[in-house]
Structure formats: structure tokens, C-alpha cells
């Protein structure tokens, strides 16, 4: 019996050590990211003063772009999205909406609104996809095409769009998103300005909930009413202004949100398009491109910029939030597992030695460590292995630290873009940043833990997050 007790105590000690190390390493890295991001985003914002948007708009060297919108049962929001896209300020733009076998009225609404007619056009499947049922076009709008296909998932719909894309770059956009008028121009700026071939360029995704939308444009930016959505506003700010920016700064981009990103067509075709074996095809594509570049000795770059804005609906209910976060976590685990040979592989430079281990240790395993920590540490107190005071202080430190990171993100927003105009908005954001770690963080952690469990148990299904048109 004594032996088992010793084993238990030893195990608990080891686990507690792991939790503490995770806490300090994870938060240490996050602090570093926060400081670097503060400098980097501030500097980038100052540089915008002389970036010459008019020149990009008018220059013949600005490459044409195709926007690909995969849509599956998006009847509530598809018209809003499409109208917004067709008004986008960009010199040469094509728009392809791929209806992925919707069972609702997504296709009918598009056909009716834009007076489309069914056509039998040529389809060259450079990348194999599910069968295409038909093309819908209005000859008066030659730059707008709707494709109807058999349901095959988001990667398959994106591949159909890719097969139809004729421009050197294409932009993937979620069907529940609204682009700011000049977002595409801003997103293309790093592609045009960079001396190295830029194969992916990501922008910032902001929460649409609560904003007023008129004629496909966000005309009044406001915070959503519900607490759940407000927490997500803070979370998105932290995720995009810190996490993504730093990947860009260090040249170790591992995630570019497919909700709004530009890709180099030839490169994506060379890597075989969007893969079906993970549920986060955007992250998987980026990792595939890193592979391809190393294998073919290509010198290329990826960028993240924080001024091109895409507004998207965030989940308004716990059920939808759970679906979204489980999928993200499961996709992260799948992608990291699929490309595990990159871990500490010096051929992959910063991606293999910083981004990959960071995502594995802090983002993937961190969810497990933190979740179990909430149960194991109290156990350790019960067994008198850790003083209750220490535990309590540690919890307080953890909460305050979570608040610090979120407050830092809100500050960064305030120093740069200030999208939320009122004092009240700022105060609300700061308040939600402070209390995010109490309750909301644990809730998201639970969903992330579920995502890991699903990955481990081989669950593969894509959980659909239904959008209900929450903008005013």
C-alpha cells in the first residue's frame, strides 16, 4: 500500500511540476509575444502613413485576384457577404462562390438576387474534386460566378474554386464574413512590396456581432450585447494582434486564417490544393507549403498584416462556440500530428524550431495540462502535497496574468486601430479583458480539451457552426 502511495505522490509531484513549467514557459512566451507585438504592430501602424494605397489601386502591376467563397447552408448571410465582396475596392477582381451541396436555399437566393442563369462551362479539374453540378452566371457580371457541387466539405469546395481560379492570387473568404472596402488592397500590399515571393498573406478577423451592416458594408462598429460574444471580441484581438503578428515578425508563420487570406495560386496547386485529412485546411495548407518550400529549395515568404479587416460572425451560443472550438483544437492536433517530422527539424528553420514546438506544447498539449490541472492541483492540496495558500495565490496569479495578456491586446488595439469609437466601448473591452480568465477561459478550455479527446479517439467529422445573421 505504501508503495502505491509513493507512486501516487510521485506522479502528482511530476504532474504539478509539469503544470508549473507549462504555466511559466507558456506565459513567458506569451509575454514575449506581447512585448514584441506591441512594438511590431505600433511600428507597422506608423509605416501605414506612407504606404501609398492609391498607387496600389491604380498601378498596373497590382495582380488580379479571385475571391473564393465556400458556402454550405449559408442562406442567412450569403447575400450580405456576396454584396459586400462585389463592392470591394480592387482593380481586377473575380468572385467565385462555391455552393457545397447546400440543403437550404443558399443557391436559390444567389440565383434570384443576381439574376444568374445556369450554364455548362468548361471545368478543368487540376485537383480532383467532387462532381460539379452546374455553373451560374449573369453575362452582365462576368466577374461573378457561382458553382454548385456535390457536398464534399470545405477543402473540396475551396479546391473547386482553385480549379476555376485564373488569377495569380486567390483569396479565401468564409461565407459569414464581410470585407472592409479596401481590405483586399491592404492584404495585397505585402505581396506587392515584398522583394521575395509572398505565397500567403493573412489579415485580421474581427467580430461582426453587434455591428450595423447596410448594403454589404459595416456602417457602425459596436460591441455585441451578450457577454459570450464580448469575450470573443477580446479573444480575437489577442489572437490576431499578438499570435499571428509575431509569427510574421519572426518568419515562422504556421497559421493563416483561411477565413480571410490570400494565397499564390501556383504554389497551392503545386502542394496539391487543400487537403481533406484535417478539419483545419488553412493551417494544414500553410504547413504543406513550408514542406514544399524546403523540399524544392524555394525562397518564399508569408505575411500577416493587421490592417486589412474582415468582419465575421462569431458563435452567439454556447453550443456553437463549443462546435467551433472543438474543431479548431482537433484540427490543430491533426495538423501537428500529420507533420510531426517538422518538430525541431533544423531544415525548417524557425517554423520547425519555434512555431511548431510552441503550437504543440502551448496550444495543443497546454489545453490538456491546464484542464487536468484544475482537478489535479486540488487533489494535491487534499493530500497535503501543496499548501492551500500557494494554490490560491497561484490561481490568482494565473487569473491576473490572463487578464494582463488580454488587457495588452486591448491596449494594442487602442494604440493602433481604435475601431471601437466610444469611451464606453473601451471601458467595456478592458473590463471583459480583465474578467476573461474567470469563467470564459475555463469554458473554452473545456471545449479545447474535448477537441483533443476527439482527436485521440479518431473523430473526424466537421461540426457546422450555424450563422444566424447577428449583425444589426
Amino acid at each position, binding site marked *: 500500500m505504501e508503495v502505491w502511495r509513493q507512486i501516487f505522490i510521485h506522479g502528482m509531484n511530476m504532474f504539478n511540476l509539469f503544470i508549473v513549467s507549462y504555466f511559466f514557459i507558456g506565459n513567458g512566451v506569451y509575454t514575449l509575444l506581447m512585448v514584441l507585438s506591441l512594438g511590431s504592430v505600433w511600428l507597422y501602424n*506608423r509605416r501605414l*502613413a506612407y504606404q*501609398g494605397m492609391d498607387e496600389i489601386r491604380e*498601378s498596373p502591376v497590382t495582380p488580379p485576384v479571385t475571391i473564393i467563397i465556400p458556402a454550405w447552408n449559408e442562406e442567412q448571410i450569403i447575400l450580405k457577404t456576396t454584396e459586400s465582396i462585389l463592392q470591394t475596392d480592387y482593380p481586377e477582381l473575380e468572385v467565385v462562390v462555391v455552393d457545397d451541396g447546400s440543403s437550404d436555399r443558399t443557391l436559390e437566393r444567389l440565383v434570384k438576387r443576381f439574376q444568374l442563369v445556369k450554364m455548362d462551362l468548361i471545368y478543368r479539374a487540376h485537383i480532383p474534386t467532387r462532381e460539379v453540378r*452546374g455553373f451560374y452566371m449573369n453575362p452582365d457580371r462576368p466577374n461573378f460566378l457561382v458553382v454548385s457541387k456535390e457536398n464534399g466539405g470545405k477543402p473540396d469546395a475551396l479546391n473547386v474554386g482553385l480549379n476555376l481560379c485564373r488569377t495569380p492570387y486567390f483569396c479565401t473568404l468564409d461565407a459569414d464574413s464581410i470585407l472592409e472596402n479596401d481590405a483586399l488592397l491592404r492584404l495585397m500590399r505585402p505581396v*506587392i512590396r515584398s522583394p521575395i515571393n509572398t505565397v500567403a498573406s493573412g489579415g485580421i478577423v474581427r467580430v461582426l456581432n453587434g455591428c450595423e451592416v447596410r448594403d454589404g458594408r459595416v456602417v457602425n462598429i459596436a460591441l455585441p450585447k451578450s457577454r459570450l460574444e464580448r469575450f470573443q471580441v477580446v479573444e480575437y484581438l489577442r489572437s490576431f494582434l499578438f499570435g499571428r503578428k509575431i509569427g510574421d515578425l519572426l518568419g515562422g508563420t504556421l497559421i493563416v486564417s483561411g477565413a480571410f487570406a490570400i494565397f499564390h495560386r501556383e504554389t497551392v496547386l503545386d502542394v496539391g490544393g487543400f487537403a481533406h485529412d484535417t478539419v483545419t485546411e488553412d493551417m494544414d495548407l500553410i504547413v504543406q507549403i513550408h514542406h514544399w518550400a524546403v523540399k524544392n529549395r524555394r525562397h518564399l515568404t508569408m505575411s500577416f498584416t493587421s490592417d486589412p479587416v474582415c468582419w465575421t460572425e462569431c458563435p452567439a451560443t454556447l453550443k456553437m462556440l463549443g462546435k467551433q472550438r472543438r474543431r479548431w483544437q482537433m484540427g490543430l492536433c491533426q495538423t501537428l500530428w500529420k507533420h510531426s517530422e517538422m518538430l525541431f527539424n533544423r531544415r525548417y528553420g524557425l517554423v520547425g524550431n519555434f512555431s511548431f514546438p510552441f503550437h504543440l506544447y502551448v496550444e495543443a498539449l497546454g489545453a490538456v495540462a491546464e484542464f487536468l490541472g484544475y482537478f489535479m492541483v486540488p487533489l494535491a492540496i487534499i493530500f497535503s502535497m501543496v499548501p492551500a495558500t*500557494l494554490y490560491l495565490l497561484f490561481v490568482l496569479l494565473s487569473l491576473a496574468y490572463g487578464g494582463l495578456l488580454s488587457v495588452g491586446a486591448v*491596449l494594442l488595439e487602442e494604440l493602433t486601430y481604435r475601431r471601437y469609437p466610444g469611451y464606453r466601448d473601451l471601458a467595456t473591452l478592458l473590463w471583459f479583458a480583465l474578467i476573461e480568465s474567470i469563467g470564459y477561459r475555463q469554458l473554452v478550455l473545456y471545449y479545447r480539451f474535448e477537441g483533443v479527446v476527439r482527436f485521440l479517439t479518431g473523430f473526424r467529422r466537421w461540426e457546422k457552426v450555424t450563422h444566424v445573421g447577428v449583425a444589426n
Partner: protein
Amino acid sequence: MPFLIEHLIEIVFVSFVVVLLGNCFLIGIALTRRQRRRKYFHRIDALREKYGPVVAGILSGQIAYAQGLQELRGISGSDRMVMLERLCLEQKTAPGQEHALGRLSEDLGLVKIWQQRLMGQIDPASLKAALAHPEGLVDRVSALQFLIRAKSAENLGAIHHEPSWPLLVKTLEDPHPDLQSVAARALSEIQHPGSFPALVAQMHKVVLESTSALSLRAIKAALISFPLETADELLPSLRHPNPRVRFLSTDIIREMVEREAAGRPDFFLDKRNLEPGLAEVFLVELPFDENPDVRARAAPVISYLADSRALPLLLTLLEDAAWFVRLHTVRALAKQRFLPQAGQIARTLTDSNWRVREATVRTLRGFGSAGRERLTEHFLGTSDRYSREQIADEFQRAGLIPELLSQCAENGNGRETRVLSSLAEMGKTSYIVSVLTQGKGNGRLRKRFLQKFGCSPDPQIQHWVEEVAQQESDSELRALAQAALITNHQHGEG
């Protein structure tokens, strides 16, 4: 162990307090910042309201220059120059007003400050203002030097300040990529012929030295914006031993020419707008360049040359071994004056590359009814599946199906009927059926179609015939559809 735990408790407690204070500090910065920005925007809004019309009036000539200048000089405060800069640069200038804006900026002392800043010098006025207000000094120190210099270069370009071009050319050599890029852009705004060779030299550097921080697109965009008359400076580059330099130079001239030609169908290149030596290179050397990219980009320029050698050269390039040379040539031939060559162009309808086939179809369609005739002839006469598919694609994309249907209704057994029949054979009937379904009012068209194609085995047409047979209110049409169904049924049984 208890000793260690106590220490750990202390460490965690101190960390907690530090983090808590950190939170308060960041919140404090955020709120203060918001307050400061609010004040700033209130001030700029007030100034805009008061002085914006003055600047606009000076530029349009509605306000006497001296009087307006005096008013603007009346703006006071430590941020006076910042506000003046904003007021001047925010003003949308109509063509021809750039000079007035430049003069105003000069007289207000802004140009001198921008030039000094660009040279990396500290201008006494802003230093004095900064020292007088500690807050301004912090701003000044915090803003990195290259940001100020780049913004100054941008401003000089924005007001088209011609005397600043030598300074901007010097900035092209600055080690900071932002400064190089902004200087190139500012030079393209000013468009002083003296700066063109420096930009060309920069292009060479970007191509030949892989370490250059300036993007090729940025330098190319700058060069393209110059007038075509300056293009002769690119002559040595067109003969450069490096194929990429030749390619870029050709492409820059192509872009310049395309810009000049935009919206002018009668545009030609002759000795009045293109240096004869340059034209000779396009006629004698570039179509035979070893680099296919050069040949491809030369074709559009050749297509504008008023020279008897141009057309044979284009027809030769139309048969080039590289598909993209053929592609660019076909596109270059999409001008009404090449209509007599439609027959030769139509040969590329059976090209092995689909992009060339597609470009050919579009070029021919661009010729209007004569081009469409050519396409129809080819469509009906060829057995080449790929070109037929391509033409069918274009008929649909261009929205020609309704027209074909109405002509079919008018002409009976004309060519349009044969085209529709071929489309039905190819299974390309979705658009046809859409027109028939939507155009319910046009009974004659549907009657004709039922008579001609009611028995077509195409499933979409059959489905439509069934619908008409069951739901149509017009008894004649319904009877025709029913008869077609019976015939079809008999054929099926037979």
C-alpha cells in the same frame, strides 16, 4: 521543503502583485491614450472646419493667395506644423492644382522641413517645439528616424515637388527598404525626366543583386508611370545580356504603351511618340530574343507600331514554340485593325494550349459580328472537340444564347439552328432551357424550339418539354410538347 514552499509562496505573491500593477498600468495607458487622441481629433476637426475651405480656396483660385497664406500662418500652437501638413495633404487636388499646392507648402515652410527631415537633419522649428513641450519631445524621440524620413519623402511626392527630385534620387540608395520604396514612388509622382535613369539603374540592381530589399513590383510601378517619351532611356536595358533585365524593360515599355493606348482605338506608335531606335529594337531584335518572356511582352508593343514589318512579325509570333508567346500575341491582335487577319488568328482556335484557344475565342468575339461569324463557322465546321467546347463556353459567358434562340425563331433552318443543335448534342443546354423557362411570354420562340428540338434526347430539354406538356396554359404549345413526347416515346420503344 517547507523553506522552499515559503519562498515559492513569496515569489508567487510578488509575481501576482507585479502582474496586477501591470494590469493597472496598461489600463491607465489605454485610457490616457484615448483621452489624448480625442483632444487631437477635436483640434484637427476644428482646424479643418476653419481652414480647410481656405486651402481649397487657394488651390482653386477663389481666395487670393497672399490673403489665404496669411490666414494659414495664423495657426498657432506647438503642433502648428503637423496641423498645416495635414490640412495641405488632406486636400484633394484637381488636375493642375498640384503646382499651387507645392507653392503653398513651400511658403508655409513645410517643404524645407520635409527636405531637412529626409536628409536626416533636425529642423530647428520642430526641435524648438518639441523642447518646449515634453510630450512632443517624447513623440519625437519615439518616432524612429526612418519613419519621419519616409513620410517626408511621401509628402514631397504627394505635392509633386519637382526641385526635390535629386534628393529623392539620393534616397534611392538609402539602406532602409522603406525609404527606397517611398522615394521610388515619390519620383514616379514627380516624373522628372532626370530621375528616370536612376530608377532604371535601381531596376538593374534589383534584378542583378539578389540582396536588394526593394521589390521588383515597386520599381516597375515607378518606371511605368513615366511618360512614354522617356522610354528611350530603356534602350540599353533592352539589349542587356541579362534576360530578366530585357524582359522587365520590354514589359515596362509595354505597360507605358498600353496606358497611352487605353481608350484610343486609333492609337499608333510612330516617330512622334516613340524613338525610332527603340521601334527598331522591337521590330528587329526582340521578336527573336532567346527569352520567350521577352518575345511575349514585345508582341503587344509591335501591334501598335505603324510599320509594314509589324504584321508579318506578329503572325510569326502567333506560331511561336512557347505557348505564352502565342497567348500574348493573340491578345495583342484583339484590335479592330487586325480584322482582316481573322482567318489567320482563327487557326489558333485549335491550339494545343487551352489558354491560347480561350484567348483566340475572345479576340475573335471582340471583332464584333464578323468575328462571331468566324467563330460560328469554325464551331459548325470543325471536328476538334476542344475548340468547340471553348467556343460553346464563350457563347454562354458572353450571353449570346438568347440572341441565338431568337434568331433561330426568326430564320428557321439558319446557322443559328445548327449551332443550337450542336450545343444540344454537346449537352450544353442549361442556358437554353433557362431562357425558355424564363421567357414564358415569348410563345413564338418556344413554339419554334419545340418544333425543332422537342424531340432532342437531351435530358434537360426533355424535362422542359414534359413541363410544358403538363403545365403550359397555351393549348398549342402544350399540344406540340405532348406530340414531341409521344414521338420521343415511340423512338425510345423503337
